[in-house]
């Protein structure tokens, strides 16, 4: 019996060991990732404002940490997770002690603090995302305070609590102080620095090393044998990793079909075709993008939209499931707020679900419009939607031209609203026109400069009522959406204002929300409130389709599918 116990124990240990350790794979092949999303702008990442640039650099330079598909933290350059003091003001970061720059010198806490203090916070570099590292103290905008503790440890101290600041900290990557000081204070020299534009400094900080970047063609990196995460398992397993650019999705799809590339994103109409190809795996995964129908709540929009009940009525007339089926070819999920399903803060129960049954009902929509005075009842009991003067209701829907999905949503909204007697005029305009004529606003008759939210009295140059838009949200910190839905939000184009919503956004970024349970409750109330209020009609969260050649192994499909891509290999 004793022997049996020992045998079971040994077996369990063996399973644990083999289960927890990554098995080394053979290194071979060139992995080509196809994209038609456009080229990067710079490899000097601190100057980048586009996602492609950050994506390219990410192959050679890890952040402090990342997340798997379930949002579990995955340590990268950090030796352990960022520690937050009990009062939520001090963040202590400890980096690994085996990180090296290309000249062999160690990456230290000094490099991180220098990057923050002397580069990101400087007034000569014009770092685009400075506001990530700023806070409001006594009506003044100030930077957080980074400090070196020792070679591998530094702290960042805030004066106000923001429980979601930790996500910003985990995302930090460093510049080498020994190189950057050469260019300090000279924006042109820094912009054109060959070390930063050719990524010659990245040492063992990323799974790959830079080889070449041919603009509008390809970005090539090769296996980094020194990669700190690959030491024991010889990762990564591709000899080279190439991002190949295509001018159109059609040619990118053709390359995947022909087997010329290992990966490509697949547009919804073509998914069925690729699923039928034996040697291609198609994974459908969630995204952070959502479609919405915005209501103009400013003075040059239809006045009815200012009433919550009217917005609810319009939302009750537009079927989210039909939209997902017809426009997104089934690759979407109904949205009820800006918090996506994969977010830890997502709440399903008790959220008003306008646009799906039972809150999808033309008759109820008309009844609600009748209650608000925007319809008349005939002798036969039928309801005719009309404005306060009894004239037929006509609304203008605007969206940016050239975006098939948004244009098709516009057509569907027109059809759905015409079923309850509202005529919709469609206007598809270029993005720059949409931005300047319909979104940016100012108070009429003043010298005010156009802005994205110039207060409650501001209006856009051209009137509009409905607008199809697409936004991204961050599943871990959806409170960043306050830019759209808080009264003072910098991108609150449509003039929505609700004091309770403002308060909840503030409380999520306050001390009480350090308790995750409390934060979850606050998010729950916020999502229930916006679902009820309908500041916009949250239409659908989009799903993405990723097509891989079947011989690519090690993939874990999910919202953060690439988190372990250094472990992918060719069979």
């Amino acid at each position, binding site marked *: 019996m004793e022997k049996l116990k020992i045998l079971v124990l040994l077996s369990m240990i063996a399973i644990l060991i083999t289960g927890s350790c990554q098995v080394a794979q053979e290194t071979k092949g060139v992995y080509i990732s196809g994209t038609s999303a456009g*080229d990067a702008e710079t490899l000097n990442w601190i100057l980048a*404002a586009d996602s492609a640039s950050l994506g390219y650099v990410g192959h050679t330079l890890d952040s402090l940490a990342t997340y798997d598909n379930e949002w579990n933290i995955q340590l990268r350059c950090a030796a352990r997770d960022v520690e937050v003091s009990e009062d939520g003001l001090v963040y202590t970061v400890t980096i690994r002690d085996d990180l090296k720059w290309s000249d062999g010198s160690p990456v230290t806490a000094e490099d991180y603090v220098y990057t923050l203090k002397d580069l990101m916070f400087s007034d000569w570099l014009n770092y*685009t995302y400075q506001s990530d590292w700023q806070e409001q103290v006594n009506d003044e905008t100030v930077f957080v305070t980074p400090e070196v503790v020792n070679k591998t440890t530094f702290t960042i101290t805030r004066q106000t609590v923001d429980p979601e600041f930790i996500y910003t900290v985990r995302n930090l990557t460093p510049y080498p102080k020994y190189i950057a000081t050469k260019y300090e204070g000279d924006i042109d020299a820094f*912009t054109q620095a060959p070390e930063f534009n050719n990524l010659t400094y990245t040492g063992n900080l990323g799974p790959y090393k830079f080889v070449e970047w041919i*603009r509008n063609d*390809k970005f090539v990196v090769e296996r980094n044998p020194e990669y700190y995460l690959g030491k024991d398992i010889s990762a990564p397993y591709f000899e080279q990793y190439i991002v190949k650019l295509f001018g*159109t999705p059609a040619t990118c799809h*053709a390359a995947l079909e022909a087997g010329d590339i290992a990966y490509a994103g697949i547009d919804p109409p073509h998914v069925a075709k690729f699923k039928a190809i034996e040697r291609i795996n198609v994974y459908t995964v969630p995204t952070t993008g959502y479609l919405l129908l915005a209501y103009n709540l400013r003075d040059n929009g239809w006045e009815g939209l200012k009433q919550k009940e009217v917005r609810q009525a319009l939302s009750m007339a537009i079927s989210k499931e039909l939209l997902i089926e017809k426009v997104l070819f089934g690759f979407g999920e109904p949205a009820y707020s800006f918090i996506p399903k994969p977010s830890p803060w997502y709440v399903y129960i008790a959220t008003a679900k306008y646009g799906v049954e039972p809150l999808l009902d033309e008759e109820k929509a008309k009844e609600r419009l009748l209650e608000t005075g925007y319809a008349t009842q005939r002798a036969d009991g039928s309801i005719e939607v009309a404005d306060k003067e009894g004239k037929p209701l006509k609304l203008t829907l605007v969206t940016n031209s050239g975006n098939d999905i948004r244009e098709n949503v516009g057509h569907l909204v027109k059809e759905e609203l015409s079923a309850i007697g509202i005529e919709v005029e469609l206007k598809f305009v270029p993005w720059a026109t949409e931005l300047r004529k319909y979104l940016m606003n100012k108070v009429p008759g003043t010298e005010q400069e156009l802005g*994205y939210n110039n207060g409650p009295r501001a209006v856009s140059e051209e009137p509009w009522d409905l607008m199809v838009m697409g936004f991204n949200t*961050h599943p871990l910190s959806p409170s960043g959406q306050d830019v759209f839905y808080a009264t003072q939000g910098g991108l609150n184009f449509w003039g929505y204002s609700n004091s309770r919503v403002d308060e909840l956004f503030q409380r999520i970024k306050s001390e009480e929300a350090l308790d995750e349970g409390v934060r979850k409750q606050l998010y729950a109330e916020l999502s229930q409130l916006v679902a009820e209020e309908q500041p916009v009609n949250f239409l659908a969260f989009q799903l993405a389709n990723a097509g891989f050649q079947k011989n690519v192994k090690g993939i874990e499909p999910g919202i953060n599918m690439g988190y372990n891509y250094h472990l992918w290999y060719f069979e």
Partner: protein
Amino acid sequence: MKKTWLRDYIIKRLLLAIFIAWAVLTITFVLVRVGPTSPADKYLANLTARGQDAAQVVAAIEARYGVDIPIYEQYINYIVNLGRGDWGWSLSTSMPVMELIKTHWIYSFQLIFLSSILAALIGILIGIYSAVRQYSKTDYIATFFSFIGISIPNFWLGVMLILLFSVKLGLFKTYYDTGIPLFSLANLQQLILPVITLGTGMMAAYTRYTRSAMLDNLRKEFVRTARAKGLPERTVIGKHVFRNAILPLITIIMFDLGSIVFGGAYLTEIIFGIPGLGQISFNAIFADDYAVVVAVTVISAFLILMINLITDITYTYLDPRIRYD
């Protein structure tokens, strides 16, 4: 004698070209900056994911693009730098503008050059044959295919060729591979589909132009005289008719070659993933990359002027009666 007036003419045209290039530069410089758009427009989508301060981001980007200082200051800085041979830094590709153009012109050049030459050779031959055999079955067939060639959009033809020859038959790669050496057979092979795509329309047009120019000349008195003198038909067509018909064709072919910088092969480059100047210049326009837009416009204007000059000089050799004094 000819040498003197031709030299004076060339000098005059060169001076004029420099003046026009400067005017084009100034107009382009002003136009791209006074437009209502901001280089920050395209970043608004990124802001939405991270919830940053929109006004701060816009200000930072405009400062980086140098549009936060008065336009006359920007212009003076630009001209001073240009005087030092510095065409500026491309902010949308992160490299010096001149290096960008130097790296990418060859991809457009090889495509347009091969397409033009091939299209001219085949198109002119078919055009001559069609004119000589006017209203024959061969002429009708050539006319039919010429109209098809002119009507087919490049982007459609390119995608169809890829689907047929690359995806279905596996004869070619689906995209242009810059890893293959430029001067190699493999490179020529991978240019076959792009050259067919770009060259089909050109060839059809050359066929029509040649046929029309040949027919014009075939009806002229000197042709009847040549035939009456008993010259062989090959000599009449080749030496007398074709030599007169080729003048307008030279202009068209030269302008096609001149479109290298201006993005004449943009659609073909897009379809086959060829990183030529067409893609570079169009992307620069959408990215508000002022330095590239100005450089590409000025260089293409200057190139067109030079091609025009070369065409005019070529005329004087093809037809010694032509003088510009």
